[in-house]
């Protein structure tokens, strides 16, 4: 029983931050119809900004809790600004073109951000672990878990619920849904679609960066961080269905559990399991688990 609980908990911890990244990716696809290759770069950007913020706060002798808040605030401000700038100054020039062109543009952004992070933060691994000790350790199923890892689970659930609520229960959300379902009709009804695009893209960037910030205290930041994340988050949204929040949640949990079960039971099949699940879903549900055949929604 303990062994089973360990797998579930490890899977949920992994799924928690992956869900936040995938949520941003699926949101951007749902609204802008862009497969954003640069999404992993925004995750890395968030992690690096968080590390800088935590280090600066720690250097002034403040409590790690202040560092935790500072990193979230810094990431929210910078990532939103970066998202808005990219959408307004770059992506909007390519709207209406073939989807492949936008894919290549985001790939170019990915490459630029790879070098940009090296330019700003260097190639050396950096870490900022102070917030990792913030919530102590807890014993569960005979093992010690870091409280910070466990706190990530409700945080991601809260973020997921907030996004779902915002889209389905608020006026702004309903406007976004209207743009998703029928852009032309939305324009004719007076919706400023370009503004919706800008906000949605910036919010997607913010979610990726937030996931990076939340994982930053427990990892060592180094070049290459972004490419691993984008591959996993693509697998998640493909499993769940591009543009589906519920799909992203279920996809993240499936990937997290599959990975945890593999590491505990069959370590050599760890990577295989992730892509096996993705392939199996695509065979039986080519649109993903939660994607409807015709209507596109997030």
């Amino acid at each position: 029983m303990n062994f089973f609980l360990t797998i579930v908990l490890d899977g949920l911890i992994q799924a928690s931050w992956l869900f936040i990244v995938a949520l941003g990716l699926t949101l951007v696809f749902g609204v802008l119809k862009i497969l954003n290759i640069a999404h992993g770069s925004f995750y890395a950007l968030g992690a690096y900004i968080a590390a800088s913020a935590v280090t600066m706060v720690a250097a002034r002798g403040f409590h790690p809790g202040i560092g935790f808040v500072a990193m979230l605030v810094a990431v929210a401000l910078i990532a939103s600004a970066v998202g808005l700038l990219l959408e307004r100054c770059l992506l909007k020039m390519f709207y209406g073109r073939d989807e492949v062109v936008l894919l290549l543009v985001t790939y170019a952004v990915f490459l630029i951000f790879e070098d940009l992070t090296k330019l700003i933060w260097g190639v050396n691994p950096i870490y900022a672990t102070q917030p990792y000790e913030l919530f102590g350790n807890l014993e569960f199923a005979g093992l010690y878990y870091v409280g910070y890892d466990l706190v990530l689970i409700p945080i991601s659930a809260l973020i997921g619920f907030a996004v779902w609520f915002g889209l389905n229960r608020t006026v702004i959300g309903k406007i976004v849904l209207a743009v998703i379902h029928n852009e032309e009709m939305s324009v004719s009804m007076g919706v400023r679609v370009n503004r919706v695009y800008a906000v949605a893209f910036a919010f997607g960037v913010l979610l990726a960066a937030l996931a990076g910030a939340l994982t930053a205290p427990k990892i060592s930041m180094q070049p290459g961080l972004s490419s691993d994340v984008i591959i996993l988050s693509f697998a998640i949204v493909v499993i769940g269905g591009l543009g589906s929040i519920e799909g992203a949640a279920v996809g993240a949990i499936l990937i997290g559990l599959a990975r945890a079960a593999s590491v505990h039971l069959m370590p050599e099949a760890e990577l295989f399991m992730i892509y096996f699940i993705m392939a199996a879903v695509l065979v039986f549900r080519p649109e993903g688990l939660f994607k409807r055949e015709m209507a596109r929604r997030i």
Partner: protein
Amino acid sequence: MDHSWRAHWAVLAASVAATSLAPAGPASAQESFKLGIVTFLSGPAADSFGVPARNSAQFVIDQLNKGAAPSPYEKAGFGGIKIEPVIIDENGGATKQVQELRNLYQRDNVDVVLGYIGSGDCLAVAPIAEELKKMLVLMDCGTPRIFEEAKYNYVFRTAAHATMDNVGLIRYMKAKNVKMDTLSAINQDYAWGQDSRADFIAAAQQLYPNVKIQTDLLPKFGAGQYGTEISALVGAGSDVVYSSLWGGDLQAFVLQSAPRGLPKRSQLVFSAADHVLPPLGEKMPDGTIIGARGAYGLMSQKSPLNDWLFKGYEAANGVYPVQAAYRMTQSILGLKAAAEKAMSKNGGKKPSTDELVAAMTGLEWPSPGGLIQMKLADGHQAIQPIAISRTKYNPDLKRVDLVDIEYFAAECVNPPPGVKSIDWIKGGMQGAKCN
């Protein structure tokens, strides 16, 4: 016009004749020895290995060119010839490195290429140097396969391969009576991780015949997050957890495993961890058994050569030298010894590639990390001594000290000539000279 054309050719012919008939003499002061140096300047291995190797190359070459190195390397440059380094980045994969190696030899006209940290890069470039009949000195990469699966005339490796690291660890654990009825391992899923794992487990099964392997993990390189792996390792509760992780991966593993109690439940054993001690500081658990791929850094033994490197490097870079810095240094010093040996036989001329190859084959030379002997692979592969120790954080100096250091002779931890490493280990490490 006709007259001037003839005069021009006459002068040219006379010049060529004068050049070809000039008697052979010592190397001129204007002559230089162009040395291609390849090391990671970017990418995941840059901070841990590539940049320290580059820094030590710059320090050593500068010192050699000034004639400021201690005996027996006090002669300036290579036998009086100034060393001119051409440093390039190893990042980018094996295919890129093959092209870069050709560029160094054929476009930049370097005399020798020295470097390479990645095992995959070493395996890729060695046949190219052989094909071009140009000298290549591999300075760090760990895989034993280079000379165990091929034979080269123009290729040398001036540092011991990974077998030494793992045999040294097991001998240390046995000497210190470390209990190991059960063993778990976590290594990266590529050549270095898999070769290290195989060597360590094989050596463990020789000196701890009853050891039971429990959890055996091979996460991909650069995984970064090890929460699930740590659950599996803590859950297994093995006496020993072995790892050949390095760089950012090792730092992340230590940072994530320490709060979860892994170091308290199991003895941590890391084969190449010296380079993460300065950045991790007090985060590195006390009592961890570590290797440094040689008797390097805080485990190095006092000698004029070691003092010169340790103090000089520290003064120049603000941090003490670790394994890659030592390995680069011993490689350059080996090449200097070979060049001067060749020059002593050819009247002091700049040596040709074949003269250098002949001089380097089977060579021995002192280095800051001890005596380097080209004893394996028909004189093309080095063996060297190794040190293993335990970590202990020093709050006064705010650094991790290494205590309980044990030194093992080169012939105690390296296979003898003509035997594949894994066969030697599985055969009970016959012929090892440990006293």
